[in-house]
């Protein structure tokens, strides 16, 4: 099959991607809301020059977001739209699932320890993304490698699990110190 130039990796993207206007509109809406909050979220110091005002740079930057956003909206109206805006937005929201798993992983570390949480996270994500059999074992092996390299080997500061308190004396120390 012959490959068309549009299928190639490119240096400078072309055209308008679905969801671009939605994204810029949302960004502008947030910028407008932040600009509206400027009187009570920043201070104006009487008798000081503009460059020394704490309000100057937030106003300039947020003003820039709104101004360039409006210019972008006007210029993009001339570019043909690619359909699929809401499907794209749904995909953005779907990415939150993995953020959820990630946050759960972080919350689990002080409870069940870095080793247990990492093994559970790696194998869980492998299973969630459709891997079965040998790949899941490789994911667990990767998790174990990460713990042994960073926590056991490099002594990276990561909190110990509360569950380790139930272990007997010397084992408890080893678990807290190395896993």
């Amino acid at each position, binding site marked *: 099959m012959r*490959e068309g130039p549009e299928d*190639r*990796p*490119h*240096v*400078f*993207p*072309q*055209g308008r*991607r679905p*969801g*671009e206007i939605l*994204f*810029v509109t949302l*960004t502008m809406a947030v*910028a407008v809301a*932040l600009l509206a909050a400027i009187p009570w*979220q*920043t*201070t104006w*110091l009487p008798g000081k*020059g503009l*460059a*020394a005002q*704490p*309000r100057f*740079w*937030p106003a300039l*930057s*947020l003003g*820039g*977001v709104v101004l*360039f*956003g409006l210019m*972008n909206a006007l*210029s993009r109206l*001339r570019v043909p739209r690619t359909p699929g805006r809401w499907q794209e937005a749904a*995909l*953005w929201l*779907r*990415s939150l699932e*993995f*953020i959820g798993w*990630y*946050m759960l*992983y*972080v*919350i689990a570390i002080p409870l069940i320890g870095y080793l247990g949480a*990492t093994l559970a996270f*790696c194998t869980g*994500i*492998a299973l969630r*993304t459709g*891997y079965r059999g040998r790949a899941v074992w*490789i*994911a667990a092996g*990767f998790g174990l490698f*990460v713990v042994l390299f960073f926590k056991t080997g490099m002594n*990276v500061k*990561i909190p110990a699990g509360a569950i380790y308190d139930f272990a007997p004396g010397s084992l408890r120390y080893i678990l807290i110190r190395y896993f």
Partner: protein
Amino acid sequence: MESFLSGIELLARWDVIAALIVGSIGGVLVGAMPGVGAAVAIAIALPVTFSLEPIVGLTLLLGIYGSSMFGGAIPAILVNTPGTPVNALTTYDGYPMTRRGEARRALSLAYSASFYGAVLSIFALILLAPVLARVAPMFGAREIFLAALLGIVLVVVTHRGQVLPAAILACLGIFLSTIGIEPSAYTQRYTFGQSWLQSGVDLIVVVLGLFAISQALVLLMSKDKRVALPHVEKSGFFRQMRELWVYRRIASVASAFGVVCGMIPGVGEFMSQFMSYSYAQRTSKTPELFGKGNPEGIVASEAANNSVPAAAMIPLLALGIPGEELTAMMLAVFYVHNVVPGPRLFAEQMDFIYALYISLFLLNVMVVAFLFFATRTLMKVMLIPNRFLGMMILTFSLIGIYTLRNSLTDIAIASAFGVFGFILKRLELPTSPIILGMVLGKLMEDRLRTAMARVREPWDFIDRPIAFVLFLMILAAIGAQVWTVLKARRQGGADG
């Protein structure tokens, strides 16, 4: 000469050499994994380097930065997928050569052009260093403000076809730099009464979110690609590397483009690569073969992108102004160790500067030697499935964020920026303007405040030669962009 020898002395330590080896081999590995790249690796490694001495930490990061593009050429040539974004143009001629059964020749040319570009730029900069040491102290507050502003303008206008989104994102980055307690009158800005916002938004947390977590999400949400590794001949590596001599004119011009583009803040690899490729095509005897497996295309692309890292260190070291996101990340290492890059560093610690350039040279030698033995083995990293890579990046990124200050809030902020970066990547919008906006925004605010205290009339601001030249460059960059937009409108095309 004395500084040069002191620079060698600084490097002659086991920990620096170990950092160089780990960084350069690690950089090739991450470069060869499509979807990872130097930005992700540096973002993850950054907090780890905080516990190291500046020279050790920077050598490690430089190793990753300088060698990732070597690795990135491998998947670009063999499977038509650039390992790092700056290897995109290498696919145009590299992959057709692989399909013709010339994979080894294409790889050898890519390695030799990369090496040539890197070494030429390092030597150019070693020769330039004494000049820079004399010029750098002439940069006062207003010159640094104008140079930073020029960096912001250039990072925006060089994003062809995306200038306005890049401007929005740069402004957003500047806004992020203003959050928290400001340092002159100690008033709060956009903290909404939250104590965790008083110290501002941490650059490293944003970097990890925008580069590492977002990339993990991209990979986790994509489908695994079936990669069929082509056959690469065992022999002929050095013989084919010598073929670069045939294309020495293109390699030299491309390297010169890389050096110039690297030295100008905000321009970087993409523009140098694009200019070199266009030059090579324009001056070629066989321009019709570009995109169909012309070795000149590979040489132009690889020599240009590999000559940038050494040059990009110039504005960072001499003025404290990072030219792109990777040098912006390195700036964090300086700040953590209270080493302030700028004119004084160039004037007083020349040995440190030389040490960095010598380490860049050594890493290039090491990488070529490593690739000589390991290319065929290294190809196997391309077989790691996308979603598996995503899981790996997410696991590593936790270490990066947690080692900063064990903060759950940092993880939440990084995750939020991860989703934001994911959306940007889906829309093919650039992330670098945010990071440069954050770094340069803070610098501009500080320097403008200092400079304005001594300025009575607006013209006083540009009454010194360097300030005036920088001002003209800003006007020229904006003028060229306006002209491009007007020309595109007349021709009925999309705005530049």
